[in-house]
């Protein structure tokens, strides 16, 4: 009996020490393989954007002896207007959207998290329900409304909704965050004579910076990538965003100029990757803790 146990032990032990190493290596190999498959197309696109057009379509690799900026030069001034205009427009819309979301969502969240008022539960239910509401149902009537208001070919249809807190997810995120802040802070502020406005602006907002940062980042990405909104409301090329510019560029050049298309696509993605590099921790925590997508 004892002999069997002793005899069995080394075998058991060896299996336990060798397996983790092999499994670990296999795991890394698998993960790296998946990453390569996922990211290679994007890396290839960036490399292709620096290669002469003739090389773009017939090469799987990344390297070339003839790297050039021609695609960028050609792409930047192609289309009906040049991309500098589209970038300025995208930056303007995105910036106005971010500020709008921060202001409207934080005000709303403070009320839900800290104040008592009639119909609070019902209104909070409305807030949660709008988070799941597909945007289609307001797409047509909003279009009619903005058309009646003569807001076509202005940025108002894209920006005003943000200032009116239509992105309920961010409100919910901030409500959850503010609820974690100790109430004693509010009480202390009240004793010092702060009203709700001062408590909100001087106490709660500075402490809610992580939630504000998450909101700003995700609003940036959503506005920068937005395609349907600008497609509906911006018909004049001088108002177009980068997304619309790229889309029309594809119409104009078709398959013939993938070099310049890739160059402009690379530039369109650059701000997103830039913010990702700077703030990936905040982004990933935002997803992990709130389920933002």
């Amino acid at each position, binding site marked *: 009996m004892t002999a069997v146990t002793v005899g069995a032990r080394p075998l058991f032990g060896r299996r336990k020490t060798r397996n983790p190493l092999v499994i670990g290596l296999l795991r890394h190999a698998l*993960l790296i393989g*998946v*990453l390569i498959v*996922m*990211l290679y*197309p*994007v890396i290839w696109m960036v490399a292709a954007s620096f290669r002469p057009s003739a090389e773009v*379509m*017939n090469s*799987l690799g990344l390297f070339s002896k003839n790297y050039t900026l021609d695609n960028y030069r050609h792409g930047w001034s192609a289309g009906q207007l040049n991309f500098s205009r589209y970038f300025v427009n995208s930056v303007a819309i995105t910036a106005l959207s971010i500020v709008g979301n921060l202001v*409207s969502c934080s*005000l709303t969240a*403070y*009320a839900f998290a800290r*104040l*008592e*008022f009639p119909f*609070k539960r019902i209104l909070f239910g409305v807030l949660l329900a*709008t988070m*799941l*509401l*597909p*945007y*289609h*149902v*307001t*797409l*047509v*009537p909003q*279009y*009619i*409304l903005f058309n009646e208001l003569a807001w076509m070919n202005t940025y108002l249809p894209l920006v005003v909704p943000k*200032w*009116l*807190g*239509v992105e309920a997810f961010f409100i919910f995120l901030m409500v959850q965050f503010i609820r974690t802040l100790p109430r004693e802070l509010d009480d202390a502020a009240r004793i010092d004579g702060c009203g*709700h406005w001062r408590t909100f602006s001087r106490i709660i907002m500075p402490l809610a910076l992580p939630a504000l940062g998450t909101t700003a980042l995700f609003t940036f*990405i959503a506005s920068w*990538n937005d*395609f*349907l909104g600008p497609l509906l409301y911006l018909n004049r090329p001088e108002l177009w965003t*980068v*997304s619309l510019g*790229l*889309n029309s560029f*594809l119409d104009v050049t078709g*398959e013939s100029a*993938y070099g310049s*298309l*890739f160059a402009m696509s690379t530039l369109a993605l650059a701000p997103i*990757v830039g913010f*990702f590099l700077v703030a*990936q921790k905040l*982004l*990933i925590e935002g*997803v*992990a803790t709130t*389920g*933002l*997508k």
Partner: protein
Amino acid sequence: MKNTRTGREGLTAYLFLSPWLAGIVLLTLGPMLYSAYLAFTSYDLLSAPRWIGLDNFRRMFTADPRYLSSVKVTLIYVVVSVPLLLIVSMVLALLLNKGIKFLSGYRALFYLPSLMGASVAIAVLWRQMFGSTGLVNQVLGLFGITHGSWVGSPGTALWTIVTLNLWAFGATMIIFLAGLRQVPAELHEAAAVDGAGPIRRFFSVTLPLMTPLIFFNLLLDTIHAFQVFTGAFVVSRGSGGPADSTLFYTLYLYQQGFAELKMGYASAMAWVLVIVLAAFTGFLFLTAKRWVYYGDER
């Protein structure tokens, strides 16, 4: 005394809420009611809406084959891509879970596509990649396989959009990963002592504890999948082609509403979608009692 204080606090609260309330009334509830009315009318923006009763709905289900094919395309897409997304996310989250080196690096790189997946730039890349001389066919060429354009053939175009959606699985994976890290190690150890292997432990310990997050991701990814637009629009150049094989619901709604100015019909389509999604959400919440584990509090 107390009443006046709560009264004043209520007033302050409504001041704080005023932008949001204006948005709810003017941009959400009001438009919803208006579109519910429009769903029973014929309206082209130029002349006043004309009441036509249930004609829009009747046409949708009996006289509009393109509508039915958009329903079919969207349903296939949802049924295939959502489970695929959940499984891939779960498998990768499991691979990343157990104290792996470079975790934050992996996590970040897997997440990056989630930020870019909805962009026109990536859709442009997808259109090239799955074109007749694109990257995919060049890779297949190395193995001596020749294939026509993937985006240009009705049999495969939808699958290019499925891969585009799958490519952005990172956000779902991160949510799963956050959940996996909450699974108490003692439970695994106890199960291991009882002789459960890794697969048995996954199905009997991990999976039940993950059901709240599976529920959450299933709900959001499904709603999200019903609304896919940019990728399909850019890849098919707004047509939903070839042969309507990528005519997603939202794309067809866009064509009907904003290219053909059939505002009534598009509103009716939107309401059908709302009702379907509400039914799906309700169904999910009703069945949740049976399969979602809410911890020991019950």
